[in-house]
């Protein structure tokens, strides 16, 4: 017994090291699998507030280009109003505007923090877009802030389809270039041409159908492969992202309950 205690004492530092590392790895794997705590992420009130202050200061340097973009967007919206056929638009969808307070674009797991939280009706799993196209999916919701998993995060999967023939694929990101994403699961019997437009499929309640995603930049079919490797040029410019809209689908809960009931 004494020798055992001696051995434990002798290696106590190593045991502390192992215990702490095991705890850290549990945190990492938990964090990869389940929704992270809003306290221990940038949805944390203080952390988000701090990021917002920095963003506010650096925002002054891009006021001119932001103004131009807003003017362009106004014009586009006016055109849309003219062309709108109200019967086609589902009434269950509501857009909540939000400001990006923090964003990384050059890591493998990029995140962005927005200044809307549970008190604005934001829920985990809601889609996020801007005027150009798809941005990402809400991952963690705090009271006033939320963390969004953007398209340019290797964890993200978004169901998309080709506008020309309704063929479905999954949008993923390989971690390399924040202007391009990859479209997976497109079978080799399809004809894919550079320039083909890709939009959201509407198969999941996260995004309504037809939100622009990007255009095919390059498609490669390797010998013996049954799926294409497709490089998609994204419409959303993540480097300049300042304002986004959260898609709030009133039917989302009902749709999710239905699918959960099937499992």
């Amino acid at each position, binding site marked *: 017994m004494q020798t055992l205690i001696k051995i434990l004492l002798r290696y106590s530092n190593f045991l*502390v090291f192992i215990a*702490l590392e095991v705890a850290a*790895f549990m945190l*990492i794997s938990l*964090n990869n699998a389940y929704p992270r*705590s809003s306290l221990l*992420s940038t949805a944390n009130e203080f952390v988000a507030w*701090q990021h917002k202050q920095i963003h506010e200061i650096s925002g002054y340097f891009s006021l001119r280009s932001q103004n131009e973009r807003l003017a362009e967007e106004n014009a586009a919206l006016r055109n849309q109003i003219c062309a709108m056929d109200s019967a086609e638009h589902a009434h269950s969808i509501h857009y909540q505007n939000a400001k990006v307070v923090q964003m990384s674009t050059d890591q493998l797991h990029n995140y962005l923090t927005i200044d809307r939280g549970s008190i604005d009706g934001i829920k985990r799993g809601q889609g996020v877009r801007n005027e150009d196209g798809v941005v990402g999916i809400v991952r963690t919701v705090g009271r006033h802030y939320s*963390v969004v998993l953007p398209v340019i995060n290797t964890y993200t999967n978004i169901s998309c389809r080709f506008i020309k023939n309704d063929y479905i694929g999954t949008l993923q990101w390989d971690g390399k270039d924040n202007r391009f994403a990859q479209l997976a699961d497109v079978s080799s019997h399809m004809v894919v041409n550079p320039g083909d437009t890709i939009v959201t499929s509407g198969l999941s309640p996260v995004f309504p159908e037809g939100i622009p995603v990007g255009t095919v930049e390059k498609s490669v079919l390797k010998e013996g492969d049954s799926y294409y490797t497709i490089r998609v040029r994204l419409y959303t410019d993540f480097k300049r992202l300042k304002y986004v809209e959260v898609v709030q689908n009133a039917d989302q809960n009902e749709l999710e309950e239905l699918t959960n009931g099937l499992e």
Partner: protein
Amino acid sequence: MDWSKQLGRYVLVMALQVLLFDQLQLWGACHPYVYIMCLLMMPITLPHSVDMIIGAIVGLIMDIFCNSLGIHIASCILLMFIRPYLIGSIVNDKDRLNEQISLRAIGMEAMLKYVVILVLVHHLAVFSLAAWSWHHIGFVLLETIVSSIVTILIIIGYNAMSYK
């Protein structure tokens, strides 16, 4: 040993990390984690396990700011675990380790060895844990080397400035 000075440096360096170095998104692969400077410069007077717990707390704070729960904790614990063995093998005169570890205390050659090895270990741990697969190994190595160079230059530069 002046603990208030140590604490002051922790606050200053971590604020700089969050406010300045985390905002740099310049070359795509450059994410210097300069905050480990305060861990590196702590004197070797506390018990080893306390050192590792301090590392874990510093890592947790960085993780909250980086949305990467666990990654900085694991890397900082690793760093604090290796630290006393490494400094013991580099510096023979143990009396020098009772004050903070700096250029002034242990000299240029020893300080360079110490900083380079620990920064490389820490950055490699952070980036490979963030990647979590062998798929991105090339990018992880590039990220480690580019970011480590910047971190090492800043830490040695800070030490050289306060040398006079």
